């Protein structure tokens, strides 16, 4: 049985990345969906940028900011002696950045689809903003959020370019499944490549099928 550590590593990195992306995406999505402020479209564009940029360009930006000699990276290195480069945490950072726009876009659409009338009704009946969000907005947006989360998870799992540049390719530590496939092909190890590719394909197809089911049930129920 070929070494499947890259798959576990990928799951771990993708899970953390999706969780972090979820927190930020829901926050920003709710802000942009509910409030019209100056620069909102611009903010939306900036937050969506990683979706259209080549992963290597993203990887480069991440290095410039978080590399040992980068803006934030040098501060981290000087004050805490830590560097995100070549660590699985760095891989999480890269995966978060690429997954975030997918979640953000889906979340914003989901929140915009929740009729403000329900929220107003709740407010009139005495609910605090927090209760309105958690008891009305979030549950009504749940289907769209879930679909977005699954897409983001798939994207985080599949990232190669940005993760390679930030976290490098360290077997057992940062070698995600996508990189393991690359390495296996480079070395002519088609056995390992086939196994990894088969498993990844099954996982991705499953995610897409489930996402479609969620999206279509949402439409039918409307």
């Amino acid at each position, binding site marked *: 049985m070929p070494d499947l550590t890259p798959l576990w590593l990928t799951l771990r990195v993708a899970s953390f990345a999706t969780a972090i992306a979820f927190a930020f995406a829901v926050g920003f999505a709710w802000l942009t969906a509910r409030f019209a402020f100056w620069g909102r479209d611009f903010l939306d564009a900036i937050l969506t940028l990683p979706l259209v940029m080549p992963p290597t360009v993203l990887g480069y930006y991440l290095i410039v900011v978080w590399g040992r000699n980068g803006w934030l990276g040098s501060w981290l290195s000087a004050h805490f002696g830590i560097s995100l480069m070549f660590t699985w945490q760095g891989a999480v950072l890269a995966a978060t950045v690429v997954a975030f726009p997918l979640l953000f876009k889906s979340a914003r659409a989901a929140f915009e689809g929740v009729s403000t009338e329900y929220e107003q009704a709740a407010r009139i009946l005495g609910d605090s903003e927090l209760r309105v969000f958690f008891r009305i907005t979030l549950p009504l947006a749940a289907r769209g959020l879930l679909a977005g989360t699954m897409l983001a998870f798939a994207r985080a799992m599949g990232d190669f370019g940005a993760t390679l540049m930030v976290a*490098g390719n360290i077997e057992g530590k940062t070698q995600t499944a996508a990189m393991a496939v690359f390495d296996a092909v480079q*070395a002519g190890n088609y056995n390992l490549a086939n196994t990894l590719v088969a498993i990844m394909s099954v996982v991705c197809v499953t995610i897409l099928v489930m996402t479609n089911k969620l999206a279509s049930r949402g439409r039918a129920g409307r």
Partner: protein
Amino acid sequence: MFLRSLICLFIVVPAVFGGASPASAETEILVSAAASLTESFKEIGKSFAAKNPGVKVSFNFAATGSLLQQISQGAPADVFASADQESMDKAEKGGVILPGSRINFAGNSLVLIAPVNMPPLVGLGDLKSGRVQKIAMGNPDSVPVGRYTKSALEKQGLWDALAPKCVMGISVKQALEYVMRGEVEAGFVYATDAAVAKDKVRVVAEIPTDKTIVYPVAVVAGSANKEKAQAFLLYLRSPEAQTILAKYGFSKP
């Protein structure tokens, strides 16, 4: 109206950008060469083209292992220049190179390097210290310099202690880049790569390898331009090409 102009755009743009290739009676040969040959081969390519009007040389630089995979899968290369004998042996066994065309054309050496703006290392022994957290090297599975490094470290009994600290690059150039950026405290590259980056990296020591590093080159069996490819190989052994190689730090084969 809008839809029509959009459709026109999708027809016109590819036509303009896709069609433009100069009608040439030129032969073009594709040389797939190890990453460490990037600078020297570019210069040699220009000088070869100058001496052979009507021939253009294009290059494909990557780790030798990648190149071997590409050629085995049918990539249209005419020449294959490898950084180690082992890869060329594999190519020969796989029948992807022209029998009898293989020649050695240059030698190189393995060096331990460190970023210039870090406190100096003294030698291999320093790599075990806590100060050295990450060491860049080529991936031994597909990059010759990685194989040389691993066997040199194994010979010194250091491989087991240092392996967890090693960051595997997909080519010698990536290992060099990690050191240049200061993301790692040390790295193993060829002397020629260290020379190209001498303002950012400092050579700590030359590492003896039990096999001398000799680069072979051969004509690819599936080449459509075998004559010109052979001419390029011969040129590599010529005094001009050897001078260029020596300029970049390669030794005689």
